[in-house]
């Protein structure tokens, strides 16, 4: 379908120019903003047909030659370069017009990545904003976009970036406290908000204690936290390993209410260790 448009336009132009012997230039503005009304001054007399052909849009209408032809508000709205012809039985007049994006931003596409990341990560959050007018044209004229990352309980981080070719981007640090941050991009009176989840990082230390429980050993960790003091989320796997002689017992236990707890068989002289991911905790030697 798209491939057929240039062929159609080419054919149309060829057909018009070859069928008519007399040609002339149209009097029309060189450039207009998207959706703005404008007029085309034609010469000659009688009836003709106006063709405006450009990227993604084509207008065809019957016109009276020798006067002003009005193009209404919102009729021509896709930004780009347009060819204009007025054809009649005896003559053809042509011209060109550029439609530029409206200067007033109406929409903002805002991409914030990632939507979830660990706390205390320098330049870990990226925001990209693309500014569009009310007709969906990317506004390529430089504009000031302000980015603001608001974390609960701390001062917001703010950056102002000028768009280049319609886009502006920035990087922000994640906060030291876990929680949902509001990431807002604003241009003029248009804004867009994204939520960025800031989650605890790796456990800072894991401390485990052991006590007898019948013929077993009850192992319990202290509340597990990252190096910023955030509680590691429930469900995180903590691995307990008990080594005795040439044998071993291993249990992967999810954190529940901030701690991990499990019972393992009691073996005199056993060495018990605890770990989570790549973080090792303390070791306990069972002497009872």
């Amino acid at each position, binding site marked *: 379908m798209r491939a057929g448009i240039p062929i159609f336009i080419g054919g149309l132009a060829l057909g018009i120019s070859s069928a008519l012997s007399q040609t002339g230039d149209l009097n029309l503005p060189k450039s207009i903003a998207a959706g703005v009304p404008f007029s085309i001054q034609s010469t000659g007399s009688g009836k003709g047909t106006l063709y405006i052909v450009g990227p993604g849009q084509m207008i065809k209408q019957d016109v009276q030659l020798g006067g002003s032809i009005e193009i209404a508000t919102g009729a021509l709205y896709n930004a780009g370069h347009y060819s204009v012809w007025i054809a009649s039985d005896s003559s053809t007049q042509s011209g060109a017009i550029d439609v530029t994006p409206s200067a007033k931003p109406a929409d903002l596409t805002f991409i914030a990545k990632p939507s979830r990341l660990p706390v205390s990560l320098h330049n870990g959050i990226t925001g990209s904003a693309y500014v569009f007018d009310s007709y969906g044209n990317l506004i390529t004229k430089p504009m000031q976009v302000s980015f603001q990352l608001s974390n609960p309980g701390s001062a917001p981080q703010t950056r102002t970036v000028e768009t280049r070719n319609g886009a502006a981007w920035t990087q922000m640090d994640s906060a030291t406290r876990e929680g949902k941050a509001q990431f807002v991009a604003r241009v003029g009176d248009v804004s*867009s908000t994204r939520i960025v989840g800031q989650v*605890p990082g790796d456990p800072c230390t894991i401390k485990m204690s052991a006590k007898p429980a019948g013929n077993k050993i009850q192992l319990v960790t202290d509340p597990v936290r990252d190096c910023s003091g955030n509680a590691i989320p*429930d*469900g995180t796997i903590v691995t307990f390993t008990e080594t005795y002689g040439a044998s071993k017992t291993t*249990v992967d236990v999810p954190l529940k209410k901030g701690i991990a707890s499990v019972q393992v068989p009691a073996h005199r002289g056993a060495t018990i260790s605890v770990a989570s991911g790549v973080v090792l905790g303390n070791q306990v030697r069972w002497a009872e």
Partner: protein
Amino acid sequence: MSNGGGRLLALVLAGATIALIAIGTLSPSKTATAAAGGVHFTTSAGTPEAAVRSLGEQIRANAFGRAYEGLANKGEFSEQQFRRDLTSGWPDLRTYATLSDFQVQPLHATDTDAAVRFKMQWSTVVGPSPSTRDLHLVKNGGRWQIEWPIQKEPVVPPQVIPVNYLRWDVINRSSADDWGAQDVEAPHVRIVDMHPVQRAEGLVLLGELLNEDVVPAYVSVTATLLSKDQKPIDTEGSFDDISHQLLPKQVTPFLIRFPNVNISQVGSVRMTPFSTLISASADPVIEIQNEKLNPAPDASLTGQLTNQSGQIANVAHVLGTFYDQSGQVVWVGDQYVDHALLPQTPVAFNIHIPEDLARKVSSERTVVATYSFGGTQ
């Protein structure tokens, strides 16, 4: 066709039917016989080996009733218990398995009793599952009979076990959203170790993958071997030599096979870990007890799995990571346990270690992936 011709055809068809019925009755197929519960198999019990072979054929044909009838110690258990010993009482891999082959190995014999090793090869949906029983046989009236070493299935007492572990559910963005609309982030995973090993059958990549995120992940790993001039040689995935579901901060080993590739051909390797969000539960918790590295010959990692939760795990996949003295991964082995894991009921596992690598193995780490019928857990 004339009436006379029609009558002749009817007579020929009737005669052929009677002849086929007679042949079928006089020499039926074994499977059909077993299904009908009727005529005998090869019931030669003149030697201990023949008696065990006969039992094997009956089990292979699912003729558990006939097999049970021929046992010397059938008074110690019911036919149902015998059947459950072989095919499981709970839905698991063995429930849907068939005995594809068996071997009989005499261990000891006198005039009145004998010992025979009975090696069964079960075909399961995830591959072969071997099982071995040492059988004691006694001679009764000139016939050898088997004393079946029944392993009665443990009975879990009726009870209510409260489970309040976390569960994660995922809601993704809608297809109707704008292209810039936010979606939930895929879990962040990281390859924490990778090591190539040359084997006779080809190149093997071993490694470990960590879920460093706070949400569960479905993971897999793909590797592409590149030649010295950076042209791709082959791309393979870990398939089931990995634990596909990783809870936060959980680590899985992985193994990727490149058959018929030599390490000398390889200039570099491009690793591609894949992760996506998955609805998951932190339950059940599986304890791995009595893990033991057994030296060659028959080098293996053995141990027992104990389900510490209330939910039955129908299938358990045990993955062992084997390290040398410097802590480098030298092998990854696995075994599917063909019996369901009932609460607080130990089930043994045995992971084979290649003989030539067994000498290098200094330590190991074991992980278990479980599946419950009705959904991945």
